[in-house]
């Protein structure tokens, strides 16, 4: 069925694009209030130590300093939460966190004290006046070491903080039936989010005594964390989000909101806190580095027979979202392939390294690097075309995954690969020292949160008397155009001009809570909620109009701010709205969308559906490798993703391009390096991300199966866009030089060594 749509599937104009280009957006740090204090965080300079002495007297006495807070000043400094699905097989069943270090420092950069002063300079000076003495204690910096019983313990008596298992069929039998078996160990880097905008916010107490925090965040629901730390009712904390200058999961965990809440609560004054670039390094979570041991078997005709894997993630010094990231990895570890026999054991391990948590891809990327490399290596052994091999094994609609979950949407992987490869065109020629090569990779990535979390999203839609509409949704706009999509959905359903729909978002006391802008869930969840609310408003209007026109609701449609009957009659929308208002039946609706719910995960063996659905896609690259230097130049690049249904084509392309660029960084250069817990890459001169000169034109190819669970059949694209980038590049490099890089990033030096160790 083809439906005529006005906005859905089109290139709808942006709300903020022009202002962003012109620098007119008021970001979190651009905001100030009269009498505002400036905050700084005093952080540990040891990765593993006991604080023997901490003296802030001199800092407190410095003119201009309003307060210095240490752990003792925090009403509820420590928090403990359960780690889901874990049994006594691992030591810790709890995740422990603290706001400020009480006595033991577990990583370099951990927050110890907070300062608020009347100028940035005074706050910085006060930080320097805080006296501290440490007693260093043995730390552990390698997750493999940390897993050993004799290693120093970070919390409790076991460093393994989560493990998950997949058990399907019988891998022994599966390998026995294999004619080829490929075994490899892969390593992935500790990637930094490196968003342009630092973590930043301003807090104040309003005339009702509510603590207000205006902050760049992906999760306005952190007002609950602030309330918990302060020991005050959740209703007395408000988080108002801002337009975000990049997040990528880096603004998913609490950033500055608890610090701001504490300082404003203590001083009763407005406070601003903005992290420095270096602090964004040592003070913030990263992507988990992984070690992935894979063994994959296939029959002579290219059918996968068995897969066994051990996956280890470095959680750093605190738990944060590590168990959930690891669960994602575990479920996605097979790749988008049907494998009859699967055994996967995965572990997340505490160390004294920088903590790790959410990052676009959320555990899906590391395993994609491994499962796609395995597919290429099997194809090579079987002397089979890598796409032919994959075609024999792709999941299909109705297939069952290794966690016994049925795929409910279309799987357009074959089409994705073919389109991406053909977009590369003619292959460029090699010279003696510049070898060209080509590769591709497939990915699957869930969208929406884990279904046992019973995720919901609420939204309110209402019509004004003049026929314009207001949408209220708590969802933050992460820069992906979340507000634009909601606007397009309401305009489409209510037959309005898109400029007449206003979206109010990201304010915990003004907008209905919509949940986080994470997990590729914003459009899926809030899009559905806004669609539900808009449809309800449409019902109210058509019901009233049917009375006014003396016809049945079925014969009515709403377009161009007019209600039409099939028989040619009509009535202006504003007349209907006025009638509704006169009768007290306001054309407004508060709706809640519920994701598919499942029972909580009970054990480490994942044997039930965990996700609502998946996005499938492929990326392809052509590279040139300079064999005399190891420099890789990307000549051509294409990414094809089945996003179900594009709501706004511009923004889908933005995600596909941005995901590829960030994935290219992960594959080729990004690595937050620590030496025994001491960070070495604290600024953007040493922590390298791709520049515009490193990223080629990315050809975005949108496939629309209309089979997703989002509005109009949409799937999610934020995370899926990044997942296959690194394995596609590594595959292309392998095609060029004949050696597979198993430890990314594939820096020039690693590529050079690969070329020359071969010879």
């Amino acid at each position, binding site marked *: 069925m083809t439906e005529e749509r006005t906005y859905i599937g089109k290139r709808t104009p942006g709300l903020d694009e022009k202002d962003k280009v012109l620098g007119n957006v008021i970001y979190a740090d651009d905001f100030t209030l009269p009498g505002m204090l400036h905050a700084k965080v005093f952080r540990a300079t040891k990765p593993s130590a006991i604080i023997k002495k901490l003296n802030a007297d001199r800092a407190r006495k410095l003119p201009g300093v309003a307060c210095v807070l240490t752990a003792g000043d925090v009403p509820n400094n420590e928090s403990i939460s359960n780690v889901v699905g874990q049994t006594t097989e691992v030591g810790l069943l709890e995740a422990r966190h603290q706001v400020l270090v009480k006595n033991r420092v577990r990583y370099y950069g951990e927050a110890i004290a907070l300062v608020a002063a009347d100028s940035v*300079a005074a706050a910085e000076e006060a930080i320097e006046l805080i006296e501290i003495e440490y007693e260093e204690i043995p730390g552990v910096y390698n997750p493999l070491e940390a897993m050993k019983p004799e290693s120093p313990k970070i919390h409790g008596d076991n460093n393994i903080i989560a493990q998950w298992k997949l058990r399907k069929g019988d891998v022994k039998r599966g390998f026995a039936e294999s004619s080829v078996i490929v075994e490899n160990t892969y390593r992935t880097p500790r990637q930094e989010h490196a968003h342009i905008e630092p973590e930043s916010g301003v807090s104040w107490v309003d005339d009702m005594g509510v603590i207000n925090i205006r902050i760049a965040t992906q999760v306005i629901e952190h007002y609950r964390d602030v309330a918990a730390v302060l020991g005050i009712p959740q209703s007395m904390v408000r988080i108002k989000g801002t337009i975000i200058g990049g997040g990528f999961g880096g603004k998913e965990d609490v950033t500055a909101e608890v610090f701001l809440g504490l300082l404003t609560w203590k001083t009763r004054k407005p406070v601003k806190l903005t992290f420095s670039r270096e602090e964004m390094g040592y003070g913030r979570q990263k992507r988990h580095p992984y070690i992935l041991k894979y063994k994959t078997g296939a029959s002579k005709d290219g059918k996968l027979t068995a897969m066994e894997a051990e996956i280890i993630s470095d959680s750093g010094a605190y738990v944060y979202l590590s168990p959930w990231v690891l669960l994602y990895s575990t479920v996605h570890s097979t790749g988008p392939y049907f494998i009859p026999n699967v055994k996967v054991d995965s572990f997340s391990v505490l160390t004294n390294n920088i903590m790790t948590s959410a990052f676009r891809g959320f555990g899906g990327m590391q395993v994609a690097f491994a499962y796609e490399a395995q597919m290429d290596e099997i194809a090579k052994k079987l002397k089979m075309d890598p796409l032919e091999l994959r075609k024999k094994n792709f999941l299909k609609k109705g297939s069952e995954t290794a966690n016994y979950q049925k795929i409910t949407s279309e799987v357009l992987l074959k089409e994705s690969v073919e389109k991406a490869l053909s977009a590369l065109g003619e292959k460029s020629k090699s010279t003696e*020292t510049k070898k060209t090569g080509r590769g591709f990779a497939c990915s699957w990535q869930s969208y929406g949160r884990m279904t046992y979390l019973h995720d919901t999203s609420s939204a309110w839609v209402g019509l004004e008397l003049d026929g314009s509409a207001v949408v209220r949704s708590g969802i933050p706009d992460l820069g992906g155009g979340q507000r634009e999509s909601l606007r397009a959905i309401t305009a489409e359903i209510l037959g309005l001009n898109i400029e007449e729909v206003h979206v109010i978002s990201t304010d915990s006391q003004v907008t209905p809570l919509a949940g986080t802008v994470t997990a590729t869930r914003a459009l899926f969840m809030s899009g559905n909620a806004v669609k539900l609310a808009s449809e309800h408003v449409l019902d109210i209007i058509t019901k009233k109009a049917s009375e006014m026109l003396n016809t049945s609701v079925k014969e009515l449609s709403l377009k161009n701010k007019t209600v039409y009957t099939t028989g040619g009659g009509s009535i202006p929308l504003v007349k209907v709205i006025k009638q509704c208002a006169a009768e007290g039946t306001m054309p407004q609706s508060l709706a809640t969308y519920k994701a598919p719910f499942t029972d909580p995960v009970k054990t480490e063996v994942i044997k039930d559906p965990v996700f609502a659905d998946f996005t499938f896609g492929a990326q392809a690259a052509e590279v040139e490798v300079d064999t*005399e*230097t*190891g*420099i890789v*130049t990307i000549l051509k690049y294409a990414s094809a993703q089945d996003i179900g249904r594009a709501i706004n084509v511009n923004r889908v392309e933005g995600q596909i391009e941005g995901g590829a660029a960030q994935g290219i960084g992960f594959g*080729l*250069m990004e690595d937050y*390096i620590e030496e025994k817990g001491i960070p*070495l*890459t604290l600024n953007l*001169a*040493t922590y*390298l991300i*791709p*520049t*515009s*000169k*490193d990223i080629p034109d990315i050809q975005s190819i949108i496939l629309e199966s209309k089979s997703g669970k989002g509005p109009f059949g949409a799937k999610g694209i934020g995370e899926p866009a990044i997942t296959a980038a690194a394995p596609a590049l590594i595959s292309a490099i392998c095609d060029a030089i004949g050696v597979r890089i198993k430890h990314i990033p594939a*820096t*020039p*030096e690693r590529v*050079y*060594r690969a070329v*020359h160790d071969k010879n």
Partner: protein
Amino acid sequence: MDNFKYFKPQNFKELLNVKYDLSSAGFPLAGGSNLLIYIKEKSIRSGTLIDITSLKELRGIKKTGDTIEIGAAETISGILESKVLENELPFFSVSMRDFANPLIRNKATIGGNMADASPVADTAPPLLVLDAKVVAASKSGIREIPANEFFSGPGKNNLSKDEIIQKINIPVPERGSGIFLKLGQRKGTSISVTSVAVWIVNDSNKITGIRISLGGVAPVPIRAVNAEKAFSGKIIDENNITALAETLKEDIKPISDLRGSAEYRTAVSINLLKRAILTCLKTEE
């Protein structure tokens, strides 16, 4: 920043006087692309920033006789846009194309890049193979320091405490051709892992004159005298170039750091040198 003062001398004489008075507590400020970072990192905690950007004695790119003079406060962008260089010595301006990025090229100056004395300063290898002179000025007069003798260690130069760089003098070579190859870890805004500049004079395929300079393989940018000796007077072909380039090992002492291991730096320096020489010889043909 309270510990810092700002001073803008009105003329060249005042600059030399104030530099004499302040000695090592006076920091010439041109683009600030290094200096402001040192202040932010607190490796410099106090002093006077002497704004030298508008003094005409430190500006301009001109040819006087057989010498091209580049004012110390000329920006890298200015060098890239200079018609004098484009006509008289395109090698040098072409060499600056991969210097940092457009934003930094608009601020950073040739004098600042040399004075900063980074082992990977991208102005250094091209200036060393051109036998350029650093013109140092102080109250007591001016002196010329050969570029090759200007550096004394990482971040250290041979200027006296009362001296500033006034300009860089480059003798325009009568013959030959040059190339600068820079190896970074990425394509934009990259800091060199290693860099190689060569200047070659070639008579019917025989190298009659050669100067080789490298960055990133020793405490300071260096001239590779052993390699120069090895290549001099040779007719180069695919068969002998590798062995000749290997002599570079006697010239370099690379370290391992975040940007690369000593082993990698050695290997790619040799490869870049081969590539540089072959490219130059092709251009000369």
